[in-house]
């Protein structure tokens, strides 16, 4: 399933997502873990809530996500609420079939993108691989872009999810983003080594802005979970409980 129920219940997210107007920072450290693991969850959960999703990817093509979601039983191309924005390449992708054609190419069209975003109230904006913007534009530009997106999403009552690969190179970016996020989910490789049954571990904690959430809406529970990625789903479980779950 594309919606990770165990994760939602572990983090005490009744809707499967953070509160509206919030920002979730997802990082992955190490080459073995992948922060894109949560993209299907955010996409499918948002679509299930009948809200639009804008997936801006700096690392992969739309085809990549379509294949992943299809294995999970979700046909993204049939969802009108799904909007893919190409941040990977500056090539003209208008010749692609409609099913795999992005709604917009980000390159040199930031104002157009912001306009596009503002016209989708309540959407969940997923920035997959924002660290690539640091490579191409620089740290300040990447943070500026993030802040602009965050303002728009907050104004429209949506949610922002940012995926970043954490290493020494992007550490400064993550430090600045975590101060502007409400939730922080960190994918890591297992500290004790590698295992065939466990893909890695996830540490979920409130980020710096979590305190701004009103008390009655504060339901988030920090957690440390292990997870196992398969083609059709991602299973989360408490550390050491893989045998029970898998």
């Amino acid at each position, binding site marked *: 399933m594309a919606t990770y129920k165990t994760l939602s219940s572990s983090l005490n997210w009744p809707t499967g997502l953070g509160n509206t107007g919030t920002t979730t920072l997802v990082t992955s450290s190490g*080459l*073995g873990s*992948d922060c*894109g*693991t949560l993209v*299907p969850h955010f996409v499918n959960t948002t679509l299930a809530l009948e809200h639009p999703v804008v997936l801006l990817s*700096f*690392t*992969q*093509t739309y*085809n*990549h996500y379509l*294949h*992943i979601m299809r*294995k999970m039983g979700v046909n993204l191309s049939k969802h009108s609420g799904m909007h893919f924005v190409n941040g*990977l*390449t*500056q*090539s*003209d*992708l208008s*010749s*692609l079939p409609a099913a795999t054609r992005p709604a917009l190419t980000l390159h040199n069209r930031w104002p157009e993108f912001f306009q596009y975003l503002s016209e989708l109230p309540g959407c969940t904006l997923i920035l997959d691989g924002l*660290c*690539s913007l640091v*490579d*191409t534009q620089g740290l300040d530009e990447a943070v500026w872009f993030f802040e602009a997106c965050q303002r728009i999403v907050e104004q429209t009552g949506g949610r922002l999810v940012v995926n970043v*690969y954490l*290493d*020494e*190179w*992007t550490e400064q970016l993550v430090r600045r983003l975590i101060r502007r996020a409400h939730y922080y989910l960190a994918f890591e490789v297992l500290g004790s*080594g*590698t*295992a*065939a*049954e466990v893909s890695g571990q996830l540490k979920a904690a409130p980020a710096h802005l979590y305190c701004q959430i009103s008390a009655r809406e504060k339901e988030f529970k920090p957690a440390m979970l292990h997870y196992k*990625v*398969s*083609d059709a789903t*991602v299973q989360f479980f408490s550390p050491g409980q893989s045998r029970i779950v898998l």
Partner: protein
Amino acid sequence: MSSSFRKRVPAGQAKQPPATRLNPHSAQLLVSTGVPSLDDVLGGGLPVGGVLLIEQDRQTGYSNTLLSYFASQAIAAKHKLCIVNADQDMDLAGHLPGWAGAMRGPPTTSKTRADENPDQTAGAHSETSDAMKIAWRYQNLPKLGDSSDEKGASDSGSESKFCELFDLSLRIPKELVDRAQPVIIGSSDILDNAATERYGGDMYRYVLDRISALVQDGFSSLAPAPTTERNILRIELRSLGSGFWQGSSSTSILKFLHELRGILRYSYAACVISFPVHQYEEAGVRLPIVRRIEHLCDAVIELESFEGTYASPADIIARQIKGGSGASQDYHGFLHIHKLPRLNSMTESVGRLSLLHTGGGSSNNLAFRLRRKKFSIETYHLPIEGGVTERRVPAKDEPKPQARKGTGAGCHGKILRADNDKMVFKPLNEREHRFYEGAIDHPLLKPFIPEYYGTLQLNGDTAEEDTPDNQAQKSSADSYICLENLLYGFENPCIMDVKLGVRLYDIDAPPEKIAKMKAKAKERTVSQIGVMIGGISLPGRPAYEHKVLYKLTTDTIVPDALVPYFSVAEESVSTDYRRFVIDQFIAEIKEYREIVKKSETRMVGSSLLLVYDASAKKYATFLAGDKSPSASSIVSEDSDGALFDMRAIDFAHSHWVRGRGADEEYLFGLDNLIQLLSCLP
């Protein structure tokens, strides 16, 4: 075994490019890297649209071997090949591993055979039909061993071999390489064009534009499908990011990789990049940009060669002499998998499709080896304990293997010799070790001391008794210093160990020892002339006893030691040879004396080892080759031709000093030795 069924491809559907296959789990198109075991590790092959980063081995060229396989596979599969190398201009001819089919020449199809010999073919067909009358359904199948690269027989691209079997002892013929028309972007091309105003010296930008143009020329998935069959573009970037690559900023390589990924994702191209990761290290720690580069690639593997990592020659030699240690003989290095491709999938397909890498921790047990004919990646197995040829524990009636001791002259304690006899291993003494290490700063002295190769550890070999006398300079039981075997190449060596200097004690020896050594010195020639014969070994004669030699006096040293030592030359060869050897020794010692005078060292208890070969044949060969002997011809570069040698040895009590001038006591001994040799008749 090929099937008689042919998949009917709808007219509008694009045909699969040749020599590719689909990953059954992600429906991703794959191409072969040319190395079947590497394909296996990657989960079936390299994804089209993906980037494989090979972190190069240091000081060896195994990664270049992988790249040459990739290029050869491109030619074998008739894919378009583009090689970018900013380090040098490349000429592929004669450098790419070939395969048997390439050597035989282009095969002919049944169609071409029919055109050329219609009667023969028809006759053959009728014969075949007669012979195969019963098995009529198999008539149209190709015969076993009838390999055909021509596409006339079939329209399906998957008929082409996915991975050719390459042979490193063969080379692709030049005409095949020329026919493939590879695009080579060499250093001259890159330097000249990147320097233009348009690029402003940014080589990355220029190469990216070239690659982009190449992709647009028939390999872009954004362009309409061609009427002919699609082909694959293989891109090789050799040593990307090396010192030869210049960009507009320190992050040029990151921008390059980011844009390259964008181009490749919408293309029928696959890229392999070799990256000199060791150039991005500081104090053994990788720079942060390395991890960023790894994130920008889809698959990352690292080659860690044993030779490159363990750069000390002693380690290499130690692995070679340890015959039971299978690792160094069987494998040439480790293959580390850092990242595997996950295109169109959240998981790596390797666990299900790979034999070598089954996921989890199995990624850290892979090794590679380069044999004469092929490069392969295998699961690393530790050698059987004790080796497969030698028992670790000797049988009861089996004689215990003895450490091969050196001869009495010039040897102390247990000195081991390498199997090839070119090196000796002396129990490590810290002071001696430091002396040899310090000799690097005294290049003039180096020709007069044994060649030093470093230290090594040998298990279970000698262990000196821990006595109070040697405790101050106790050598590690397992550690040895590796030195040149000065006797190597001598057929009938005549050896003499001459101790020089007046002192027999070390400066930091305890007072009682100093007193004892002073008393001993008074009884020996050292205190009078600074020369003492430590040992003499002559071929075919009983060894001199130390106590006999030590009791020599100033008057007896010549008749009782030096004369008998050189008499062997006269008896075995000739009088002329004896004179010749003495003269050469004198010349050598004089030259050595001048070097020592300029070196700031204190060589206490050190010896001069004089060796000459009592071989008439060798002398005759020498005379026949060079009638005017010079120092360089006497001891040839190839030690097999050495007639004599003179080296200083035994530095267990020696050390380097700064600002304290030459060792006058040692020079005193050298002067007297020269005098003694000059007095010989």
